[in-house]
């Protein structure tokens, strides 16, 4: 409308422009764009890892083994997608690991009580979502830093799991459907992997093609502006925590289907950190705004690939942690070097 009412302005603006534009512009070749796309970079990293493993690690290269790696990555991937939502809004959730145990025992307990699998799963997911809402409310409305809220939340969820299960493992009533979930294959792909893929697809759509998803990123980068632009920040934040815990619960259900028993200590702090690591290795920023579903999935697969190789190579179990730690540091350094090389602003 301004142009119509004032052609003068339109004209006036253009004069300093060419210079301005060219000044801010930057020659972006195809290779440049590819190497600049962190997700593609990750994919490359994963493929290189697999190629190396294929050559160096005996028995790694079988279809069946890859299938195993993917199956093992499925629950981690789902949990990592969940935490992605929280990391995107610049939060963090340390309680994830404890929710594994909580949801696991809730699932089996309800199963034992009612004998209905759908009900049991619903209850497990419900417990997770509920817990997430609690985290979200404490963070958003009571304004307790997410780190604290969820650190406390971890202990609380952990304790609840113990109370529900009276501290012992609960054997899962046999249920073909539930057993099928872990054994079943579709076109050679495990159900769990397919499930994870579906979750990922939904998450991708939500993050990239919905008001909610766009709002999440906006809040992550600058919640003040987002709020002043009409984004319901509190709602977004709380929802993200709910999604995170809900996903953790789903991951717990998947893992429980694999062991077919309810374990109150399923997951634990290591699971929390494994999940965060998957997200970060997947290129997610801990400061909010930056992170992709695909990246996170790749991160999860990378981690499980490492686990897989450690066992295949018969590395002394005492060294697992050391190797893991080393890989994390290396991955970070490599990524840092990469972005330094590309002169990205961090």
């Amino acid at each position, binding site marked *: 409308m301004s*142009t119509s*009412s004032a052609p003068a302005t339109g004209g006036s603006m253009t004069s300093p422009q060419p210079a301005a534009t060219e*000044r*801010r512009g930057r020659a972006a070749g195809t290779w440049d764009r590819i190497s600049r796309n962190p997700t593609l970079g990750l994919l490359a990293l994963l493929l290189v890892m697999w190629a190396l493993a294929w050559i160096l690690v005996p028995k790694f290269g079988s279809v069946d083994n890859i299938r195993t790696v993917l199956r093992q990555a499925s629950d981690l991937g789902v949990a990592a997608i969940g935490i992605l939502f929280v990391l995107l809004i610049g939060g963090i959730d340390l309680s994830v690991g404890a929710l594994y145990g909580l949801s696991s025992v809730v699932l089996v307990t309800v199963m034992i009580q009612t004998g209905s699998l759908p009900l049991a799963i619903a209850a497990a997911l419900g417990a997770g979502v509920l817990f997430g809402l609690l985290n979200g409310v404490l963070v958003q409305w009571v304004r307790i830093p997410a780190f604290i809220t969820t650190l406390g939340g971890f202990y609380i969820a952990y304790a609840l799991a113990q109370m529900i299960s009276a501290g012992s493992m609960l054997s899962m009533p046999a249920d073909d459907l539930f057993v099928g979930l872990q054994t079943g294959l579709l076109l050679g792909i495990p159900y769990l992997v397919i499930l994870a893929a579906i979750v990922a697809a939904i998450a991708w759509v939500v993050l990239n093609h919905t008001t909610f998803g*766009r709002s999440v990123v906006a809040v992550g980068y600058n919640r003040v502006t987002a709020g002043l632009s009409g984004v319901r920040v509190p709602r977004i934040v709380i929802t993200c925590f709910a999604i995170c815990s809900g996903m953790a619960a789903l991951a717990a259900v998947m893992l429980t289907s694999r062991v077919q028993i309810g374990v109150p200590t399923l997951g634990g702090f290591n699971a929390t950190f494994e999940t965060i690591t998957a997200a970060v290795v997947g290129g997610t920023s801990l400061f909010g705004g930056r992170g992709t579903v695909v990246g996170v999935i790749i991160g999860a697969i990378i981690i499980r690939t490492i686990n897989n190789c450690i066992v295949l190579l018969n590395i002394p179990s005492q060294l697992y942690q050391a190797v893991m730690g080393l890989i994390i540091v290396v991955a970070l350094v490599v990524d840092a070097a990469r972005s330094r090389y590309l*002169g990205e602003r961090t």
Partner: protein
Amino acid sequence: MSGPVLLDAQHIQKYAYDDEGRPIRGTDVLLLADASLELIAGEVHALVGENGAGKTTLIKVIAGALPYEGGSLHVAGSLRGETTISRVRSEGIAVIWQEFSLAPHLSVVENMFLGRELRRGRRLDKGEMRRQAAEAIATLGVSIDLDSTVERLSTSQQQLVEIARALNERSRILILDEPTASLSRFETERLFELLRRLRSEGLGVIFVTHRLDEVFTISDRVSILKDGRSTGTLVTRATTKDEIVERMVGRHLDAVYQRHRTTPGEVVLETRNVVPAGGGAPASITVHRGEIVGLAGLVGAGRTELARAIVGADPVESGAVLLDGMDVTGWAMRRRLDAGMAFVPENRKDQGVILPLPILRNLAITEWPRLGPGPLVVPRRERGMATALVEELSIVARTVDQPAFTLSGGNQQRVAIGKWLARDRVVYVLDEPTRGVDVSARYALYELMEAIAARGGAVLMISSDLPEIISMSDRIYVMRLGTISAEVARVDATEQSILTLMLPDTTAADVSAAVGA
């Protein structure tokens, strides 16, 4: 005026740079193509140019915050190559950046000596630092609690702390980057007083500004930058606004904007005795359809607080806000926005736009809920909408996908306003919409406001720029010390009258005189 040359920058070249300030590999983009600036002891040297002209970059180079790739930079006669900020500070150069360089949770004293603390042996000499700080603050003729954490100080107080720090460091060169942008007229006057004194004491002052009248008030010489090139250094006495503007934009603009009037409709926005959160006196104002209403006053007079209370960004302590006759006081901000309010906050970078997000998203953020079936956002529609807006507002960008931080201030501001233009809103509340915006962008914004009024929208504009507020507004509310001190019809509005109403020490007599009642 022929003191020794304190600083001489010749034909400085600076490429687009990365985090370390090094040129981005393989870039051929020059932020500074050929920038020169000479500063003599005992002068105030104005540096002007449109946003993106390279003023700040040049200052960063001079301040040692950035290395330079071409040209020469002599400080006190000696050529400067690689350097560090602390070394530059010891060269006697102090810069007061636009966004202040103070640590919010450190005390005034700690901030004043941050990075160059006084020591007695290995220990901090707290007593001495305190004494010097007090002294420096005193010489500014103000009183600031030395132990208060900086976060508790007002904008102008924080600026004064920085200047005090510069004085205390016995700086010979004082560089101020748009120091008046966030100051009220009153505070600006005080600042100029100070600068004049420093000049008389033989300091060299580089004064970056967008306000040409300030150039004439304070500066001895003025250097103009355009697209990273110097387009001349003029002796202020011997030049005119038009000449400067011409060298800035390469074309002529009328000094004052003439807007075509429209006849206001019925009342659409009303506040009844609103006391914003944090207190103040009850404020009652009305804004009509098709009307541009100005809200004048010193910084801290309560204008922003009132604006935020109107749009619901903050709760109100008492009183009521009415939109189209509806009481929206209890409504959450989102609900008010949906009901047709729009808000452009004063702090563009922190509140107006989301810098890392593409222009596309920044413009569409208000419309997402309406850009697709249900919760979805149809990319095509979002892109179409944004592209149209970029066209309309003639925002200068290669694509709508480039992040907002790649835009100049003026263009960022257009984005901040543009996100409210996809749909016609009823009431636009604009807080300092033209602050830190270059001349031509400023005019474009004026036209925007007019267009809004023309189609029956109502505009409430907060501005510290008196000529602007007078030329743009149909009516002007003046705020003083948290209260509406007067309502002035445009016909009665003169810079003098408005200013009188703004100043804290105005008497009732002055008011009636000013309003001409």
